């Protein structure tokens, strides 16, 4: 079963258009949404949670339609939004008591253990926490009610590298259970590279590609050459390029370039940049 299925999703407002998005996140996997500001990542998450009305398409979460059965499915969804959303005056213990009455499967002990593990000060009000600690508290809530799907909107932003690494480890532990899946959007591509099985590139409301991360690496590579060497490559081999006085750096399809040409591995950040540039 897919944890998340999105087909033909459209939404337009205020000069922005999300254009027929198709995504499938298999259960037990992690999908990263990568895109610049305004690319449509948060819009997709809002549409999944039915915060905003879609113009077209369908969304199915854990096998159920998100319009008809969302209040039932939400027991199985953990969310962390960009601005968390916990009221400023609440302390962790109060959040614990509130959530124990919100979620049927709330595990207060687990919540407190996450707070301890992530070093979140429990005696402070939410407004007194740093951005990183606010995010960690939000993550602890999302992880403490036996959710099968985590939806994380920029959940690792604001965390220092050491804590980010620890949070990523927690997410990776979480997905060891094959029923557990994560949809995560982030600007920090290195986080997604470490965590994700699937990568989706969004640019100006369009889905440029959505593939298994390992397949992307197998399929694409990076070459450094002179402009005339680049021109000699078969049509369709070059996905994107960057020219400078030192030569050309280009992202290419490995299966389309002649044998013998040295093709270097490409990381997800380069892949994204070249894909967007190719689109432009």
């Amino acid at each position, binding site marked *: 079963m897919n944890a998340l299925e999105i087909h033909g999703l459209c939404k337009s407002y205020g000069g922005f258009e999300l254009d027929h998005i198709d995504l499938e996140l298999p259960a037990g996997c992690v999908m990263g949404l990568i895109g610049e500001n305004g690319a449509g990542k948060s819009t997709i998450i809002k549409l999944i949670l039915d*915060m*905003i009305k879609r113009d077209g398409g369908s969304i199915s979460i854990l096998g159920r339609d998100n319009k008809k059965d969302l209040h039932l499915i939400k027991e199985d969804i953990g969310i962390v939004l960009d*601005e968390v959303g916990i009221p400023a005056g*609440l302390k962790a213990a*109060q959040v614990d008591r*509130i959530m124990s009455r*919100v979620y049927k499967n709330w595990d207060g002990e687990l919540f407190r253990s996450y707070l301890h593990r992530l070093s979140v000060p429990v005696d402070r009000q939410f407004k007194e926490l740093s951005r990183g600690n606010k995010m960690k508290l939000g993550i602890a809530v999302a992880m403490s009610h036996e959710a099968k799907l985590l939806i994380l909107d920029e959940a690792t932003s604001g965390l220092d590298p050491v804590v980010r690494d620890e949070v990523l480890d927690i997410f990776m532990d979480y997905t060891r259970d094959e029923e557990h899946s994560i949809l995560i959007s982030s600007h920090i591509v290195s986080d997604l590279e470490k965590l994700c099985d699937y990568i989706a590139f969004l640019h100006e409301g369009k889905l440029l590609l959505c593939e298994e991360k390992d397949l992307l690496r197998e399929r694409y590579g990076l070459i450094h050459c002179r402009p005339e060497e680049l021109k000699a490559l078969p049509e369709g081999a070059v996905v994107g390029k960057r020219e400078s006085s030192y030569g050309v750096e280009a992202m290419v399809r490995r299966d389309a370039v002649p044998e013998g040409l040295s093709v270097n591995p490409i990381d997800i950040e380069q892949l994204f940049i070249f894909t967007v540039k190719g689109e432009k």
Partner: protein
Amino acid sequence: MKGLLLKDIYMTGKYMKSILLLVVVFIAVALFGEGSDFFLFFPCLLAGVVPLSLQSYDESFKWTQYSAGLPCRRSQIVSVKYIYGLVLSAVMVILMSAVHAVVKIRGGESMNDTAVFAACMLGVSLIAPALSLPFIFKLGAEKGRIAYLVVVAVISGLATFSFKSDTLPMGNTGDFPFVLFIAAVLIVFVLSWLISIRVYNNREL
């Protein structure tokens, strides 16, 4: 829904201590001063304001978006504000009616008009949220606040006018159809509740 209610109780304790202080001051003035019944009406008006303030806080803390991801329906999110407002108003009306009765007994007056007084207080307490919450749920706290200010200004104006011109039927309880009045207020409140659920269901968060 219990969790949402508990959150609102915590928020009230945290952000609305000043209202509690005002209530104490107004009760003291009513009991020990020579103030009019207006001092007992005002706390009821404040009780009605609490759900509006809570919704405003919810929006500024982005709880509105966060709660959309919690396992509750939008109708429950709306209903919590109405239920909480109703309970607070009822508590405040009972408290102020008791104070009103004490003032009357101490002054050697009849308690006959306390029931009318309670009915009017309930009206004052519920009418502001009833008229304002649909705007707030539809337009958001920022724009809805304008509608709220207009409603409060109108109610305060009418209340002041009534006290000054003695148009409220105090002391003439037989003429005041307070059962009908309470019924009318409750009907407006319930209609407002239903409208708020409808508009909030259609709102983009």
